[in-house]
């Protein structure tokens, strides 16, 4: 019987968004299936449906991949086509898992999953160690600046649970990822198939003293350190009731993209540069003195100035520069290529502006981080550097400083296709520049 105290605790847990990355045979589906199964997140009717479907396909044991392959075509072909989102909870935390396919078009899928993730799981087959694919995943995690990376060294049962095998892989990976600037790496030896260290601690690996995979997910911090954030509020919508009760109410609604705002603070509206002071903050019906990142708020200002959707409210003493020349690392996500001279729309925060691709100076090979100069175009799943000229000045941050105000998407103005995911500024948070062959080109990979 659940008590009221437990119910209260249940509603006061935190939310962790994480993404998986793994290639075809690393056992990603098994890990996801094991995690859901052992944390008792699969309900009996779902399991029965899988058993029924497996039996009708002539399989002796339930195929847990059927739990996650939601589309007819996926089940028929036995492959995962697209990112799926899964939900589970423990008494400590609730989880949103972006389950990204390993096969097809993995770069754009991993970018999609990682863009909202606070943690990425990179899976390795213990028998194979760090391979090209692992380095790609690490590079993407670094590029997307996912705050936490877990290296799950899987299939430990197939290497006799040897500590030396795990230690060597963990060391090689950590050295590589640190060089890329991945801020935090946790390596965990597991067997997804046998269930070692996924939810329950393994009796086969006494030498491992760290948390199980689930324990780590439950305890990794999802807090934000305010002292390192530039406060940013993209204005989504202007709320003007114009009723007898609220004749003069004029509120600027938006979700705080970074940092915090407080009543009385001097603020500047970009790109216009108008200044005012925060007269009040309305947190969905409750007046508050201070509001934080990811809260959706309505801000009231002391002065009646011209503000509309697409503007950015920032502290006057901490305003980003505005520019019409954006340099960024991009991942091309559409099937049609991106070329120099391409006329596009750029959506940044709540603002969508016309833009033109002025130059594609280089394409990045994720395997070895080498640069291919002036590739002429970027095709689906390519990552490259791009110079874009916008029709109006934009207040952009570096993606390193702010994942929300340093990111943008490019959209095809003809058919609305999402073309490209963009990250402004330097690519990798590397403490020292990673060696490459094209240093004289001035690129910062």
């Amino acid at each position, binding site marked *: 019987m659940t008590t009221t105290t437990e119910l209260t605790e*249940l509603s006061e847990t935190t939310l962790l968004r994480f993404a998986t990355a793994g290639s075809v045979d690393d056992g990603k589906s098994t890990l996801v299936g094991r995690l859901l199964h052992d944390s008792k997140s699969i309900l009996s009717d779902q399991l029965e449906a899988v058993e029924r479907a497996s039996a009708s396909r002539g399989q002796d044991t339930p195929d847990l991949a059927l739990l996650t392959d939601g589309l007819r075509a996926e089940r028929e072909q036995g492959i995962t086509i697209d990112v799926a989102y*899964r939900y589970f909870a423990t008494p400590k935390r609730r989880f949103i898992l972006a389950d990204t396919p390993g096969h097809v078009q993995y770069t754009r899928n991993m970018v999609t999953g990682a863009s909202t993730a606070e943690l990425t799981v990179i899976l390795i087959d213990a028998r194979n160690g760090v391979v090209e694919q692992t380095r790609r995943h690490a590079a993407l995690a670094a590029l997307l600046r996912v705050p936490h990376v877990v290296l799950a060294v899987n299939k430990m049962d197939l290497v006799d649970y040897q500590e030396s095998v795990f230690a060597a892989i963990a060391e090689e990976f950590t050295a590589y990822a640190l060089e890329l600037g991945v801020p935090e790496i946790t390596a965990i030896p597991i067997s997804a198939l046998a269930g070692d260290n996924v939810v329950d601690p393994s009796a086969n690996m006494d030498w491992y003293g760290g948390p199980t995979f689930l324990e780590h997910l439950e305890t990794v911090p999802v807090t934000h350190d305010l002292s390192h954030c530039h406060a940013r509020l993209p204005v*989504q919508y202007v709320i003007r009731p114009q009723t007898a009760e609220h004749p003069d109410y004029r509120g600027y609604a938006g979700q705080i993209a970074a940092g915090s705002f407080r009543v009385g603070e001097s603020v500047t509206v970009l790109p216009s540069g108008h200044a005012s002071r925060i007269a009040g903050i309305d947190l969905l019906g409750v007046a508050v003195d201070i509001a934080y990142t990811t809260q959706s708020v309505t801000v009231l200002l002391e002065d009646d100035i011209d503000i509309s959707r697409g503007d950015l409210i920032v502290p006057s003493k901490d305003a980003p520069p505005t520019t019409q020349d954006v340099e960024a690392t991009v991942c091309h996500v559409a099937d049609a290529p991106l070329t120099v001279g391409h006329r596009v729309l750029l959506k940044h925060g709540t603002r969508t502006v016309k833009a033109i691709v002025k130059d594609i100076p280089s394409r990045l090979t994720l395997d070895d981080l080498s640069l291919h100069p002036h590739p002429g175009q970027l095709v689906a799943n390519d990552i490259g550097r791009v110079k874009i000229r916008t029709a109006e000045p934009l207040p952009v941050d570096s993606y390193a400083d702010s994942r929300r105000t340093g990111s943008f998407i490019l959209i095809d103005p003809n058919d609305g296709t999402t073309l490209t995911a963009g990250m402004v500024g330097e690519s990798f948070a590397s403490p020292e520049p990673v060696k490459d062959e094209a240093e004289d080109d001035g690129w910062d990979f």
Partner: protein
Amino acid sequence: MTTTVAKTHGGETDAPYTLSHLDALESEAVHIFREVAGEFERPVILFSGGKDSIVMLHLALKAFAPAAIPFTLLHVDTGHNFPEVLEYRDRAVERHGLRLHVASVQDYIDRGVLKERPDGVRNPLQTLPLTEKIQAEKFDAVFGGGRRDEEKARAKERVFSLRDEFSQWDPRRQRPELWNLYNGRHAPGEHVRVFPLSNWTELDVWQYIAREGIELPDIYFAHEREVFQRAGMWLTAGEWGGPKSDETTQKRQVRYRTVGDMSCTGAVDSDAVTLDDVITEIAASRLTERGATRADDKLSEAAMEDRKREGYF
């Protein structure tokens, strides 16, 4: 780029902080409502009087307060609704001064455009009235209360989901969704289905209802009801064609986990009379919401995917 980090805030705000999961989900949903209000011409909220659409309406009201919500409501009336739910719908419309559009399945059957199925299940018949209403009213954004945790095809759904001029969903041609930068571009005739509750689970919805003190139709709480059994579910007798001669009714204490067409929405045995009871019951349940009470999803392994492809919500 600026690299210096200014300590701009007072001491008490330097401590790390984090939103509770409900606050995080609420904030995200509000963000989605405001994006649609900012970018679309004629948005509408699908409103059935069920708990998910009631939560959507509550979130929309909060998102634009103290102004009225800039959306109308649309109900696809199957003709086999629970009277308590229709009554709730009309009261909500009245209280918030909203405009309600109704697309009626019964009209289509009466006009001979749609044919009643032998089993009397009307859920699949909703698609045509819905999609024709969207076209006729030129709605360009249609909010649905669908959640990705409901069903494996819905787990693949985007928050902003583009539909073609036939309202069709093509899961292989979805736009990648990056950060919180939703792409609402669409051509005339196309529309976007928007799912602000994508990341909510059934338990989140109930916890939020409890926290916000949101009123629900009574059928969500345990009550005595005349029911009969079909395909392992307790169904309520009604004009839609149940019970058949070999089915007998009995009085049981039940409640509903979902609200849909009476012909295919089952009740569960329950003693849960308060919100806390309901939350406790759901937290302990070994059955999903749809597995327990929706006949139409048991029709085939891809039932939901097939309906969604045709334009179902």
